[in-house]
């Protein structure tokens, strides 16, 4: 393999930073979900990269579990966004300040 472990970890750090930027700046609920997806993917990339270089099979197993949990999280998150959109007619999270009953 010509690519070292550090290259994959650096790409993962860049993706993590972009995801945190999206979470911190964007006010659109769906765009914030994009940021969460990027953070989860950078974590998965780290898991698989370290599993390749140790080498060990359990990192890949954990990455598979993580992908499945992320799918469940996205389903619930999108359902919450749809409910909030129905209540407030908007997906701007500044409008969700008064979330109650």
């Amino acid at each position, binding site marked *: 393999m*010509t*690519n*070292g*472990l*550090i*290259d994959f*970890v*650096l*790409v993962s*750090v*860049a*993706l*993590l*930073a*972009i*995801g*945190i*930027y999206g979470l*911190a*700046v*964007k*006010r659109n609920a*769906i*765009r914030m*979900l*994009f*940021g969460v*997806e*990027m953070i989860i*993917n950078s974590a*998965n*990339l780290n898991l698989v990269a370290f*599993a*390749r*270089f140790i*080498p*060990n*099979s*359990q990192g*890949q*197993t954990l990455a598979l*579990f993580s*992908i*499945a*949990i*992320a*799918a*469940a*999280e*996205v*389903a*619930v998150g*999108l*359902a*919450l*966004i*749809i409910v909030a*959109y129905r209540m407030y007619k908007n*997906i*701007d999270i500044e409008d969700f300040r008064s979330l109650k009953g």
Partner: protein
Amino acid sequence: MVDAVFLALSVLTIGSAIVALEIRSLIYGSIALMLTLSGIAGFFLLLDAPFVAMFQLSVYVGSIAVLILFTVMLVRRELIFNKIEDKRRRYAGIGLMLALMLGLGMVIIGSGMKSMETNSPSVDYKKIGADFLTYYSPALIVMALILAASVVGALTLARREDITNDQRTD
């Protein structure tokens, strides 16, 4: 040193991640997010993990991206193109992003990870399947229950209670 495939994949992944957050239309944004996720699948292929790569393609690009596209189509048209954000918070966010990249990057480059390379053969994916069915089988069952519960929860949340069946016209 890195090879050309790695460079192309990282440009694709990072570039389309930025596009997904910054482009005006949410529909193009979700398509760019799809590209980012496919780039990550390409990295998995480079890391000799074809099983995880195919899982990533079928779960993320196949289902999650389509789910996000459908949700985007459900919201009003002007909200899709609407982009309101604080200028000051935006600059602070860019500063935070650069600080994170530089700080974490310095820590990682300074660590002993730089000399870590491997010549050992990659893990056989039969081993992963055997792990799933032996040591990790309780975790697999719990994960199946979590998935079922989350899908049922999402359906319950998104159900409209103000419409009964006889009110539907179509």
